C-alpha cells in the first residue's frame, strides 16, 4: 500500500464527500424536497389554503415531498406497449444525471476542485446544462403519445429561442471578469462590485432564462396541464415520473448557484484565503447555497402570480426582447471593460 501516496487517498475521499454530501447529492435531495414544500406552502398561503399539512403536522407538512418520493418508489412501473422501451427508461434518468453532473463544475468555495482543477468551469457547467433538454425531447419522442410529443416540440422551440440569450448573458459576464473560472469571477467581484450591479441587463436575462428553462410560471408551457395533460411526462409513472418531476428543480438549483456566483458575489461577505475544507469550502458554500435558495424561493413564488404564456408569445419574446437585452448586455460589458478599467 505504500506506493499509493496518502495525499491521493485523502483527495479521493474529499472528492467523494463533495459529490455525495455537500454540495452534492444529499444537499440536492434535501434542497429539492424543501423547495417543493416551500413552493406548495407559498402558493397555499397566497391561495387561502393550508398546503401540505397532514404528513408531519408539527413541522408544517415538511415531509410531504419525502412521502411523495416514497410513494413514487413503490408504484407500479407502466410502460406503454408502443413506447421505445430503451429511450423511455433511460431518458429521465439521463436527464436527472446530467442535471446533477453539471454541479461538479460549479464550485461553491475557493477550495473546491472536484476530479481535476480547471480554469474553464463556466464553460464545462454550461455545456452540461445545455445537454439536459435533449433528453427532455427524447422523453417526449419515446412515449408515443401525442401530448408528450407536442410537449417535446414545445420544449425544442423554447430551447432554441432561449439558449442564445442565456449564453450571451454568461458571455457578457465572462467579458467583465476576464475569466472562464467561477472562483476567479467571484474573487474579482469580492475585489470590486457584485455582477448584478456591474451588468444588471445580463442578470435580468439570466433570470428570465432560468424561469423558462426550469418551467416556472409564466413559462410553464411544456407542461401546460389544461392543454397537454402533463406534457412530456404524460405516460410516465412511479419513480421515473418522480425523477422527471424533480429534474427541473435540480436545474433550478444549478441555475441559482450560477446566478449567485456570477451576479450575487458568490461567498461575499466572506472573504477567506484559508485553504481547508471547512473554511475554504463549507462556510462559503453555505453562503452560496443560501443565496441560491433565496433566488429559488423568489422564482417558485411566481406560480402564485402568473398564468402561462402561449408558445408563440414565449418564442417571439425570446427572439426579440430577450435576445435584444442579451446583446445590449454584451455591449454594456464591452463598454465597461473599455472605460472602467
Amino acid at each position: 500500500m505504500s506506493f499509493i501516496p496518502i495525499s491521493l487517498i485523502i483527495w479521493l475521499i474529499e472528492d467523494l464527500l463533495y459529490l455525495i454530501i455537500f454540495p452534492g447529492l444529499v444537499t440536492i435531495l434535501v434542497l429539492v424536497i424543501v423547495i417543493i414544500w416551500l413552493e406548495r406552502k407559498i402558493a397555499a398561503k397566497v391561495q387561502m389554503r393550508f398546503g401540505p399539512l397532514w404528513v408531519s403536522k408539527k413541522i408544517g407538512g415538511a415531509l410531504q415531498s419525502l412521502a411523495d418520493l416514497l410513494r413514487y418508489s413503490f408504484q407500479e412501473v407502466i410502460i406503454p406497449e408502443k413506447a421505445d422501451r430503451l429511450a423511455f427508461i433511460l431518458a429521465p434518468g439521463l436527464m436527472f444525471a446530467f442535471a446533477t453532473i453539471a454541479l461538479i463544475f460549479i464550485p461553491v468555495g475557493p477550495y473546491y476542485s472536484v476530479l481535476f482543477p480547471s480554469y474553464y468551469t463556466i464553460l464545462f457547467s454550461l455545456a452540461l446544462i445545455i445537454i439536459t433538454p435533449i433528453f427532455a425531447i427524447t422523453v417526449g419522442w419515446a412515449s408515443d403519445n401525442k401530448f408528450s410529443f407536442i410537449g417535446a416540440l414545445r420544449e425544442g422551440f423554447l430551447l432554441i429561442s432561449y439558449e442564445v440569450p442565456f449564453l450571451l448573458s454568461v458571455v457578457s459576464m465572462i467579458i467583465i471578469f476576464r475569466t472562464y473560472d467561477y472562483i476567479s469571477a467571484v474573487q474579482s467581484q469580492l475585489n470590486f462590485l457584485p455582477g448584478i450591479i456591474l451588468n444588471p441587463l445580463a442578470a435580468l436575462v439570466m433570470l428570465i432564462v432560468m424561469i423558462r428553462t426550469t418551467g416556472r410560471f409564466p413559462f410553464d408551457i411544456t407542461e401546460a396541464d389544461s392543454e397537454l395533460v402533463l406534457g412530456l411526462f404524460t405516460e410516465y409513472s412511479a419513480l421515473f415520473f418522480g425523477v422527471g418531476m424533480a429534474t427541473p428543480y435540480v436545474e433550478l438549483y444549478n441555475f441559482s448557484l450560477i446566478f449567485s456566483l456570477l451576479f450575487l458575489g458568490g461567498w461575499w461577505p466572506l472573504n477567506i484565503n484559508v485553504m481547508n475544507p471547512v473554511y475554504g469550502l463549507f462556510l462559503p458554500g453555505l453562503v452560496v447555497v443560501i443565496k441560491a435558495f433565496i433566488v429559488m424561493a423568489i422564482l417558485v413564488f411566481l406560480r402564485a402570480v402568473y398564468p402561462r404564456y402561449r408558445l408563440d408569445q414565449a418564442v417571439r419574446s425570446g427572439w426579440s426582447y430577450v435576445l435584444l437585452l442579451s446583446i445590449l448586455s454584451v455591449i454594456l460589458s464591452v463598454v465597461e471593460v473599455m472605460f472602467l478599467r
Partner: protein
Amino acid sequence: MSEKIFNIDDLQNINVEGEKYIILQIGPSHPGSGHMRIKVWLDGDIIVKVDPDIGFVHRTSEWLSERREWIKAIPIVERIMLPDTVHANLAYVLTVEKLLSIEPPPRAQYLRSLVAEINRITSHLYGIGIFGIFLGSSTVYMWAFGDREPFIDLMEMLTGARITTSYIIPGGVRWDMPNGFKERAETVLQYMERRLKDYEDIWVKNPVVQARTINVGVLKKEDAISLGVVGPNLRASGVYYDTRKHQPYAAYPNLDFEIPTMKNGDSYDRLLIRVEEIKQSIRMIRQILKDLPEGKIVADQIYNQLNPVMKKNYEEKKRVMFPAFMIHMRPPPGEATAKVEAGRGEIFFYIKSTGDKYPYRFRWVTPSFRNLPFFTHVAVGHRLADLPTIYGSIDYFPPEADR
C-alpha cells in the same frame, strides 16, 4: 397579440381527411376538457376544426321528469345545473305556475330574486375559477372557489341547503328569511367588493392574462346573434339583451340595475363581463334587502291547502310544509313556456300538460347547449394553446348542455 392566420370562411368546409392533420382527442378524461370529448384537427399548431362530442354526461332529465309527479322534477332539473341550481329550479317553477295560473306574493318574488342573484354570483365565480385554472393560474382558481363559500353559506342560511336548494316551489318559496340574514349578507357583500379589487390586481389586469385573452376567440356581434349565443357571452359581443330586462320575472321589474355590455367579444371581454355582472348582482342584493316587502311567502291558493299543523308550523317557523296538493298536482291541460336568465345565459322551458299527474312533454334548453356552436366557430384558426382559453372563457358546463 395573436392575429388569425386563416380566414374562418375558408376553413368552415375544409376537408380534414388524410394524414396532413394531427387529430387530438382532448377528453373526456383530460384536465382541460370537462366531461366532454373535444376532437381537434391540428395543422401544426393551428386549429383547423373542432368537434365537441357532447352527450358524455347525458342524464335523461326530460325522460325522468315525464315519468314522475310534477313536484319531483325540481330536484332533477337542479342536478343538471349544479353551479346554477336556483335558476333551473326557478325556470321550471315559473312554467308550472303559468299552467296552474298561480301568482306568488311580492315577498316570495323578492326572495326568489335574492337567492337567484346570490346563485348568479357563485356561478360566475365558478366560471372565473375554471377559466383561471385553464390559463394556468391556480391562485384565481382557489380564490374563486374559496370566495364562493360565503355566498353558498348565505344560501344555506336562507334555504337550508348549500347547492341543491329546492327552495322555490309553485306558488312561492319554502322558507322565509331568517333573523340576522341581512347583517350577514351585508358583511359578505362588503367582503366580495374588497375581493373584487384583489381579483383585478392579480387576474384582470395581469399582463399575461391580457396577452393570452385579448383578441383571442373574437365573436362578432352579428355572428353572436346568428349563432344564437345567450347570456354573458352574448353581452360580451355587444348585444344588449337580458331576459331579466326584456321579459322580467320575479322581482326584477322593481329592481334598478344595468346590463353591462362589452364591445370586442373576445375572451377578455367575456371575463370582464362576469366581473361586471357580479357587481350588478351585489347592487341588486342590496336593493332587495332594503325593499323586501312584508307578507306571505306562498300564494293564497297554496296557503289555503295547508292543514292546521302545517299552518301552525308556518306561523311559528315561517316554513312551508308541502300540502297534499303538491304531490297530487294536476295542472289543467295546456302548454306553457318560461325563460329565465341563468348565470350562463337563458334557460328556456316548454311543458305540455294533459291534466295528468305527470307532465306530458317536458322540454328545456340550457344556456351551455346554446353557447356550444360558437365555441366550434371561433376556435378555428387559433393555436392549440388558445383552445382552453376560449373554452374556459365561454364558461361551458358539460352536464348542463347534456341534460
